[in-house]
């Protein structure tokens, strides 16, 4: 890594990167094109929201853990309280992650949310409440993933720091799982 590189770094998981981007682009393209040329709201809604839901699931369950080694979920404990869990690989594995994969992951997350916000503003300007419904659902899904992985990233950074410190001390940091009480949970 310190040596000057002649060949540029390639994506470590090109197939996962493809699916990570495919559903996002599909939802946005379908929404924009069908809104302009096809006037059937039901078709626009179903296809766009379906693609957005697919994207949410793929990012959360597949590309998140393959591209950046993180995952998040919610579960109910024995007392009935809601517990949010954020999970990431240990420091050694995280340090080995491909930087280009990580770059693509985060940038596409933010750009997609920004695109939906812009489209929402357009719907608001044209006073189309039904299309605002589509944008609202898609934006909710995007923001959920951003929030979840941002919290995972905090643990990931701690793990990487621990790995490099531990590497100097000839030790390996284990995986950390942090839990948060939901604001809606019963304390």
């Amino acid at each position, binding site marked *: *890594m310190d040596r000057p*590189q*002649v*060949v540029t*770094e*390639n994506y*470590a*998981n090109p*197939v*996962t990167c493809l699916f990570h981007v495919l559903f996002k682009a599909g939802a946005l393209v379908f929404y924009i094109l069908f809104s302009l040329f096809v006037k059937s*709201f*039901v078709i626009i*809604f*179903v296809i766009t929201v379906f693609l957005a*839901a697919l994207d*949410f*699931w793929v990012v*959360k*369950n*597949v590309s998140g*853990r393959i591209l950046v*080694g993180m*995952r998040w*979920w*919610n*579960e*109910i*404990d*024995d007392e*009935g*309280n*809601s*517990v949010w869990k954020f*999970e990431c*690989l*240990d420091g050694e*594995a995280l340090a*080995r992650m*491909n930087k280009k994969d990580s770059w693509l992951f985060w940038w596409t997350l933010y750009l997609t949310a920004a695109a939906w916000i812009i489209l929402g503003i357009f719907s608001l300007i044209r006073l189309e*409440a*039904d299309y605002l*419904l589509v944008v609202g659902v898609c934006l909710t*899904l995007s*923001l*959920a993933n951003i*929030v979840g992985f941002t*919290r995972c990233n905090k643990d990931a950074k701690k793990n990487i720091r621990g790995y490099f410190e531990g590497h100097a001390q000839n030790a*390996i*940091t*284990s*995986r950390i*799982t*942090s*839990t*948060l*009480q*939901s*604001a*809606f949970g*019963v304390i």
Partner: protein
Amino acid sequence: MSHGDTIPLHSSSAQSDMDEIESLIHAAPPSAAAVLPARPPSPPRASIPVSSSPPLLPPPVAGSKPQLPPFSSSSSVASSSSPPLPSSVSVAIAGDGFGPPPNTLTEPVLDTVKRDLARIVSNLKLVVFPNPFREDPGKALRDWDLWGPFFFIVFLGLTLSWSASVKKSEVFAVAFAVLAAGAIILTLNVLLLGGRINFFQSLSLLGYCLFPLDVGALICMLKDNVLLKIIAVVVTLAWSSWAAYPFMSAAVNPRRKALALYPVFLMYVSVGFLIIAID
């Protein structure tokens, strides 16, 4: 040795996506073997320590099997760190004899899909069919998800919009908005009454209870007989109310049971009227 470990792990997973990734990884190193920092997918993962406590042994002895991920999450989450649970309830995954036991960070994609689908089916059975956990909202729908409710709301909207002869878009938008907002309002109603049910648990419950009404809407779409429509809607309305009753009543104080149940019943009656009226 690592190459020997790779082959059985892949053969056991039999995952097309992983095979494609593996072949692509193998194709990449010949072009830039020295400078390419790409990591092969499985050998490092097999050796990654995955237990929550710091293990001194390099191979992990126990893997976390958490609950299935939710459909969506609230962004307003209060932070309070607590020690992670040593074990979590989830669908049991048959572990193969190769490598460490599978965990959610390194499991094949197919296992994730199977687990999600199995949970949706089990949640549906739990809500609309008799079972011993109906009286305990804490145990029921512990594996909550919003995929089922999402599908049922969209399905009901589609059915109503197909039944409508004019203004299909408005019918769909109104149905979706009423159901989504209604579920949220009903959940807040229960929480404000001091209910012991979780926010997303309640959303999930109300969504799954729409399944009978979906069946009623489908029957009404296929049949034009008004009397048959009324019978179908009344039966499915009673079924939905019966499904929602134990969860909502057990979640709140017995003296406030009527306050929690009446809005739920009102929403289902409204949906029933929507189903009958749209023609």
